[in-house]
């Protein structure tokens, strides 16, 4: 089990290989379909983003509400293929890591190789367990999106596996669903 301190450096990324189990400590930002769409449209228009994504790791998650006394509600990964359409634009803008579940399409993998980025998988269905490694949650942007807004999570020993590394090597045996737009 490799302990990784965030933000990711290029040296750390080069040393991560598909299949490695890791524990992530530091901060990540969150975002799902709706937030990705907005960021993508701003990038297309050449406008400034409400959140700096350069060097960041983004976690594909829409948590359940937090009970009183909890930093965050259950927060497991959502299916990553929904973000595929927007991901290369974010990677070109400096995004270094992603955490989700399931497969990615060929365009995303090519862009990861080109930009030196890594894709982690968290265990789908282990949301209550995962939320224990999230110590703090702060709203960064798009409050109107509710659970799909962009938050900054402070994580400690967040469990994940390198699913696709920066060399384009993948541990997945199947192709993703490609039809979703």
């Amino acid at each position, binding site marked *: 089990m490799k302990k990784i301190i965030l933000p990711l450096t290029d040296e750390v990324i080069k040393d991560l290989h598909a299949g490695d189990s890791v524990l992530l400590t530091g901060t990540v930002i969150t975002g799902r379909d709706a937030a990705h769409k907005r960021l993508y449209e701003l990038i297309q228009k050449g406008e400034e983003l409400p959140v700096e994504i350069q060097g960041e790791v983004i976690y594909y998650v829409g948590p359940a509400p937090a009970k009183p006394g909890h930093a965050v509600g259950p927060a497991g990964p959502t299916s990553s293929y929904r973000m595929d359409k927007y991901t290369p634009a974010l990677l070109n803008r400096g995004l270094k890591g992603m955490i989700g*579940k399931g497969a990615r399409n060929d365009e995303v993998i090519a862009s990861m190789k080109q930009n030196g980025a890594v894709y982690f998988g968290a265990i789908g269905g282990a949301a209550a367990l995962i939320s224990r490694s999230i110590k703090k949650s702060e709203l960064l942007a798009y409050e109107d999106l509710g659970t799909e807004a962009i938050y900054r999570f402070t994580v400690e020993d967040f469990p994940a596996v390198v699913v696709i590394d920066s060399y384009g090597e993948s541990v997945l045996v199947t192709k993703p669903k490609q039809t979703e737009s």
Partner: protein
Amino acid sequence: MEIRSIDAAAVTETVRTLFMDMNYHIGNDIAEELKKAMDRETSDTAKNVIGQILENHQIAADEEVPMCQDTGMAILFVEYGERVVIENGSFEEAVQEGVRRAYIDGYLRKSVVDDPVFDRVNTKDNTPAIIYTTIVKGDRIRILAGCKGFGSENMSAVKMLTPSAGLDGVKKFIMDTVNYAGPNPCPPIVVGVGIGGSFEKAAMLAKKATLRPINTRHPDSRYASLEEELLTEINKTGLSAAMPQDIKKR
């Protein structure tokens, strides 16, 4: 004919409790199978994943928090006894109120939007629930409910087979659907299959099948052995965890 009256508030409370409980507690049938799978699996990654899923269920049950952040859309299959009358309200409203209270009081995620295409505004209480009602004999109401999340719901498929497609056509479609879904639905994956009827009937049967206790088999032995055969085939794919089980050699 004797009529039995049920207070709308009792319906609401029953539905509220159902949805909170199903989000906090895994069924014994699934818990047992996971423990067996833990002994059966030889891959360290698979064992690790199952271990974390079991631990996750324990945390959810102890803290009464949902086991998954996607607490689904509420679906109810209702068998409504023809001799039941609802007092102090309507059945439909009582059910919707039960769902509303479960998702608000139970810290469950509200994922439902009103208009699916143009507005996409969250209804903020996870209503409307989808209610399928069958009128049956008697003076009882029986509710079978589920809260399937959309990570798995989006992997659903329906196909209209020709009469000559036969058993092979059925098998091929099921295997194609499982392979197409790949690692996207979260483990443990339950494959519900509905065959026959019309377009919507087959889909409803499939949804209902996902709610069946997982160790049970179809009463017709021919379908029971088909279930066994497909389960073996599906487990051979090496899929079934959102995390990979077959790590490629580097």
